[in-house]
């Protein structure tokens, strides 16, 4: 028994991504049609010639019919799946395995979410009937993630004022990047003072520490690696896919200290082993990580091995993860500025890797790490919260064998 991965056996040959934002004039169906058609056109494979589909959505619809109906797909296998905020990545993972197994020649992973119509602040999941005795649904996501900040500050002796500077800089950086992205929900640079003083939501977090509630869709077409050059000169090879669900003990036993996601450490370790990565910070050209709230991105820098334990905040302040830093993190603006339509987010991250590693990102956010020859990108997608979550890590690359 063991996790062996499918390094270089499957490649992405086409991708599509809608703009993310307040799409009052578009339904989930509209967004699915747009993303599916864009990915199909990008790959040169007609929608009718794609053999199987994996559709990720947290709550915008149910069953395979949610995709087959708007696209009028003729009698194709369509799986609808959900794995909290890692839903989009989970659809890609399953599509890749289906192609790697030999069951299908091609598959599409597509994710969508239509969040704005409800009018709610933040996410609103639906729960099965319960006893009202386990805290589920009692508090909001920003509150749950806000637990990271004071715990981190206390453990590593960071003054709370300085901690706020660190969180502010993460939001500022992602808004800087989002301002260069025509698909992003928020396309303005935001002054640090405005971020710092934004209205409080939970704990140390203000509105600008939270990702955007958004509508959007993204899709990828995958084929066997040996067939990839039939469709594109620049395929993106899948190097590693790892998903773990934690035992959810962090909120049940005192060993957990709210300064790490053990699930992320486990999925990163598995992914690096599959891809043969030993020093992610120097080997990766970019990382798209799950910056649902600013302290999450800080902790992820350490959990993914981009920074030493207790040192991540210094790397943030010195700009090491900026667009022109050692390792650019969220060059597309991340969940913070690009927006977070749940089912689409994991594939949106992959869309940035697709653009950057193939040299197709817009001039103003092109990465020095790529022009200097790095060929690998990482996406990280997380669902749940500190103490109990699922975590996904992928590594993709523009060169086979690398």
């Amino acid at each position, binding site marked *: 028994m063991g996790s062996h991965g499918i390094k270089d056996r499957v490649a992405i040959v086409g991708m599509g991504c809608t703009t993310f934002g307040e799409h009052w004039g578009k339904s989930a169906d509209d967004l699915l049609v747009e993303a599916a058609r864009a990915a199909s056109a990008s790959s040169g494979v007609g929608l009718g010639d794609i053999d199987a589909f994996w559709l990720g959505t947290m709550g915008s619809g149910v069953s395979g019919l949610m995709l087959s109906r708007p696209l009028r797909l003729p009698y194709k296998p369509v799986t609808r799946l959900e794995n909290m905020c890692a839903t989009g990545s989970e659809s890609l993972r399953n599509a890749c395995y289906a192609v790697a197994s030999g069951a299908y020649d091609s598959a599409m992973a597509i994710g969508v979410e239509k969040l704005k119509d409800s009018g709610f602040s933040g996410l609103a999941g639906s729960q099965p*009937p319960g006893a009202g005795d386990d805290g589920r649904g009692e508090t909001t996501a920003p*509150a749950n993630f*806000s637990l990271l900040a004071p715990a981190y500050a206390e453990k590593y002796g960071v003054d709370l004022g300085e901690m706020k500077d660190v969180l502010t800089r993460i939001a500022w950086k992602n808004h800087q990047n989002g301002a260069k992205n025509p698909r992003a929900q928020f396309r303005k640079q935001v002054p640090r003072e405005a971020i710092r003083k934004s209205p*409080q939501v*939970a704990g140390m977090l203000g509105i600008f520490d939270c990702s955007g509630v958004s509508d959007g869709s993204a899709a990828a077409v995958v084929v066997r690696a040996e067939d990839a050059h039939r469709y594109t000169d620049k395929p993106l090879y899948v190097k590693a896919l790892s998903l773990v669900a934690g035992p959810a003990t962090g909120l049940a*036993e005192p060993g957990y200290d709210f300064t790490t996601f053990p699930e992320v450490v486990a999925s990163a370790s598995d992914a690096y082993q599959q891809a043969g990565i030993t020093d992610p910070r120097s080997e990766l050209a970019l990382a798209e990580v799950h910056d649902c709230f600013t302290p999450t991105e800080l902790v992820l820098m350490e959990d993914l091995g981009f920074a030493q334990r207790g040192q991540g905040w210094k790397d943030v302040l010195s700009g090491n993860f900026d667009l022109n830093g050692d390792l650019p993190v969220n060059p597309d603006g991340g969940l913070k500025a690009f927006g977070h339509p749940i089912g689409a987010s994991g594939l949106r991250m992959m869309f940035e890797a697709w653009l950057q590693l193939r040299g197709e990102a817009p001039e103003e956010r092109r990465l020095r790490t790529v022009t200097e020859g790095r060929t690998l990108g990482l996406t990280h997608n997380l669902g749940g919260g500190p103490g109990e979550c699922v975590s996904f890590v992928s590594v993709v690359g523009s060169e086979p064998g690398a």
Partner: protein
Amino acid sequence: MLLVVLADGVTALVLRTTAALATRRQPRPVAAQIASGSTALAYASFLSWRGFLDREPPRRPDPDPVAAPPAQRRAGWKFGLVAAACTRCGTRSLPPERVCLECHAVDEMAPEPLADSKATVTTYTVDRLAYTPSPPVLMVVLDFDGGGRLRCQLTDAAEDEVRIGLRVEMTFRRLVTAAGVHNYFWKARPVRVADGE
């Protein structure tokens, strides 16, 4: 004694005392219970709890009402805060689970009452977005004396009272009323009376 309760319907109870009464007195006198509460209740909060003042809710979905079958299945935990302790390794499970989180023993749990246990706040936050009759929600993560962790609300406390290391005790309170169904569960509150600890 006949006790008639008139609220959400009528309940009539006939109570008869026995000789055991003297040995089963409430260990905590009423005066001590009052002293352990907080008097800092804003008049507007009092009015809104009594239904005389509507407070604008957050832009969040209405809370779901409690369902009777799961509440009945977990009556010991929900109403008595009876957790479980693994008979193999002693690790507590809050709420009770069948598989031990530490040694993975299955169905080897013994009841572990925690309602009278004290705990310490290990981390906390203030949730200004969550739905509650008593905003904002003070959310704490508690580590109980003797083991076990619970994330729950802190009550009878002001925002600036919450801190890591705060000593708390448990109290059975209303969380929310949804679709006409009150949901009671346990909240933490600061230990204000030493209580011979």
